[in-house]
């Protein structure tokens, strides 16, 4: 069995690995801390990878995050505006979040990522589980909100190792239900 995983900081932690072990599967995990929904959508669908995966587990994140290309690298933008490459552009993004960004815009971007990813895997006939770490999402298109699991968190508000095991176990327990739906 082969599993593909992508997402932001949660998915770049240990739960995809624990789940792969439970399913006795090989794991390809391209998640990166700080990824926005658009980054996850882009890096998944623009990836040149014809592997016939048996399962894709995608973790989407806060809908307000975005990204841009600075000529050399993709730069992740979140409301914290903490990316070291932001430099002079911090002021522009600060204005964006303070004066121009709305929940409706975020909902729209989130919906694009969900639909784009679902379609990508559907035409390849790869079952796909999409979870989110956006506590306040209004979308009913996710298979699960990871914050519905009462896992222990570390100082950075990410799951502890035990928390990752809990997430993996919950995903494993839901596996058959979710797979029968997708």
């Amino acid at each position: 069995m082969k599993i593909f995983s992508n997402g932001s900081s949660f998915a770049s932690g240990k739960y995809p690995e624990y789940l792969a072990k439970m399913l006795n599967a090989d794991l390809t995990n391209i998640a990166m801390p700080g990824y926005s929904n658009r980054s996850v959508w882009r890096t998944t669908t623009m990836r040149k990878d014809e592997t016939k995966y048996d399962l894709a587990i995608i973790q989407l994140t806060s809908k307000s995050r975005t990204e841009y290309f600075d000529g050399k690298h993709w730069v992740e933008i979140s409301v914290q505006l903490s990316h070291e490459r932001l430099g002079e552009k911090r002021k522009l993004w600060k204005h964006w979040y303070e004066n121009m960004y709305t929940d409706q815009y975020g909902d729209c971007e989130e919906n694009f990522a969900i639909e784009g990813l679902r379609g990508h895997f559907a035409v390849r006939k790869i079952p796909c589980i999409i979870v989110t770490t956006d506590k306040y999402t209004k979308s009913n298109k996710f298979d699960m909100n990871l914050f519905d699991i009462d896992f222990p968190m570390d100082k950075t508000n990410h799951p502890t190792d035990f928390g990752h095991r809990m997430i993996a176990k919950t995903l494993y327990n839901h596996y058959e239900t979710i797979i029968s739906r997708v």
Partner: protein
Amino acid sequence: MKLLFLGCSYTAGCELRDREKYRFSTLVGKKLNAEVVNLARDGNSNHAIARKFLEQDLDQYDMVFVQMTRKSRTEWHDEEGKSLKAKILAKMNIETFDEYWNSKTPDSRAKIEYYEIEKAKFFARAERELKNIKFASEEDKWDRILTSKLRFMATDNLVDGKEWWERYYDEIYSDKYGESDEFLFYWLMKNKLIEKGIRNLFFTIEPKTDLPFDLRVDHPKYPRERFSHPNKIGHIMIARDIMRLL
């Protein structure tokens, strides 16, 4: 049979005297004896086209025609409606009027007195628009951003005295971002239609693209109006080429 058309001004029939009658979507609908829903809008970005696409109940359509546009365009959700006013104010100047005036036929422009009459009408119309600003629907809050003219970027969001979107295109936007945007929206819509088994054709007006589009509706073989949109004959030719693709 029911057909859905999405796109920007090219599919909306911009510059035609009677858009609904002569645009290529109507002509294709007539040839196929089909009901046509055309949701194209002037100035639409690929973001707007994909958003409208996802709002539809696609199962009711037998065929879907998606005309994608310039990849640099975008949109944002203007909750306060500041951009509507900013865009009207930005066009209330003599340069914009002259642009409008130059779109008139040479015969019309030959009459000097006509210049003053048209100028008065132009500014009076803008004044009326300014007084009557209101959102007719939620859709109106999605402000269309185009790079072809600075006034299309006016939103009254100034950072260090410069419009936010001007700075965005100067300092943030890149071709690589535009390419990824176009790729993501193309495959979002294409995969959805493949998944649902709905027959589809994809068109574009973007000159630099590697995506497998079926037709370029801005091809120079199609005769154009003054602002480069296909004229009545252009729409007939596009409809004929679409029929050949079906």
